[in-house]
């Protein structure tokens, strides 16, 4: 369970947001909404542990996230940068990604993940020859190759076509059914496939 208590963020003198409070139980999903520049990415980076939490608190299962081993092992953050190496293939990228996260991964599982996101036949091409949408798909495939229960996704469906958006929504739905937790921002209507009982939305205001 993720609890965010009275979180605020400042950039120099400027206040981005303050007083952000929400709770996210296992098996639920939170759609973070807000205008451009209101601080959605900053909030996600704070919750994922990339930026320090200066005021407020973020707890994972009742423990603060700083120096929290179980939190580090349980969350995936996927931001605007896809963390793919252009000279490696999608397959190699995902294998190194899992290994750097400290997990062993079966090559068949990686192939399966790439196939379910529509990259069958392109597993061994260098990532630099893939289109933007295909790169995004390859980056999202790590959600399936790594074992993590909390997914923090910053605009996961940017540059994706409709079938791929539906595939991502399906992946999120399956994750929620297994008791996972998802926190995401999106300007696209990604939420149709997800049962409305398990999704809430939170509007971030500056």
């Amino acid at each position, binding site marked *: 369970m993720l609890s965010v208590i009275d979180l605020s963020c400042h950039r120099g003198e400027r206040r981005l947001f303050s007083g952000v409070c929400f709770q996210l139980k296992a098996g639920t999903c939170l759609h973070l909404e807000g205008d451009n520049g209101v601080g959605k990415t900053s909030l996600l980076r704070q919750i*994922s*542990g*990339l*930026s*320090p939490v200066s005021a407020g608190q973020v707890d994972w299962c009742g423990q603060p996230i700083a120096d929290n*081993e179980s939190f*580090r*092992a349980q*969350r995936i*953050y996927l*931001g*605007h*940068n*896809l*963390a*793919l*190496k*252009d*000279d*490696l293939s999608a397959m*190699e990228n995902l294998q*190194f*990604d899992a*290994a*750097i*996260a*400290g997990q*062993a991964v079966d090559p068949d599982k990686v192939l399966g993940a790439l196939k379910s996101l529509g990259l069958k036949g392109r597993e061994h091409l260098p990532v630099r020859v893939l289109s933007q949408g295909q790169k995004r798909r390859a980056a999202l495939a790590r959600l399936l190759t790594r074992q993590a229960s909390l997914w923090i996704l910053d605009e996961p469906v940017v540059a994706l076509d409709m079938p791929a958006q539906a595939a991502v929504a399906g992946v999120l739905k399956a994750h929620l059914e297994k008791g996972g937790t998802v926190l995401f921002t999106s300007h696209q209507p990604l939420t149709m496939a997800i049962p409305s009982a398990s999704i809430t939305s939170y509007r971030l205001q500056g």
Partner: protein
Amino acid sequence: MRPFLAVVRRDVSLALRRKNEVMTSVFFFVVVAALFPLGIGPEMNTLRQIGPGVLWVGALLASMLSLGRMFAADHDDGTLEQMVLSSASLPSLVGAKILAHWLLSGLPLVVLSPVLALQFDLNGQAIEVLMATLLLGTPLLSLIGAIGAALTLGVRGADVLLSLLVLPLYVPALVFGAGAVQAQTAGLGASAHLSILAAMLLIAAVFSPWACASALRIALE
């Protein structure tokens, strides 16, 4: 251990696919070391005296050429974010990147140095000592340089700043590295110099990854 080896393997395989970065620093070393005898002329005594110093300065500059890219590529494509978020400790992953940097831009210089030393008419013993100092010294250069690379990450004009920051810190390695060969040829023995180099290497191996990790966390905030 798995994340550490994964980072080393990834960096090495990336470099082998895009060889120009590795080859640049190796050729730079070869060319610098080859220019000096041509410029100074075939005066054997002079060459023998300046040889170790020239080779060391060449190695130092060559290892610095590739420092700028050490963390910048990972920073640009978001891999660094994933490394910071990994459940493996960041200093160990940074240590792996430093090891990869040394394998790609330090070790080739050690291997090439005996061939280049022949141009300076160094004798067999002096060449052995030179190789030993470079074997201890080039990882030290990578470790010290990594701190500079991490501190200047994301800064505009980072390359110039990096050399201003790092070159003064290379001075002790240069003094004891080149000094070891001169002490050997003067008949004093090089063991004291080599011990000091080894001590500096051990200290840097402990503190540098930790310092880099702190600098990288600040760069990503």
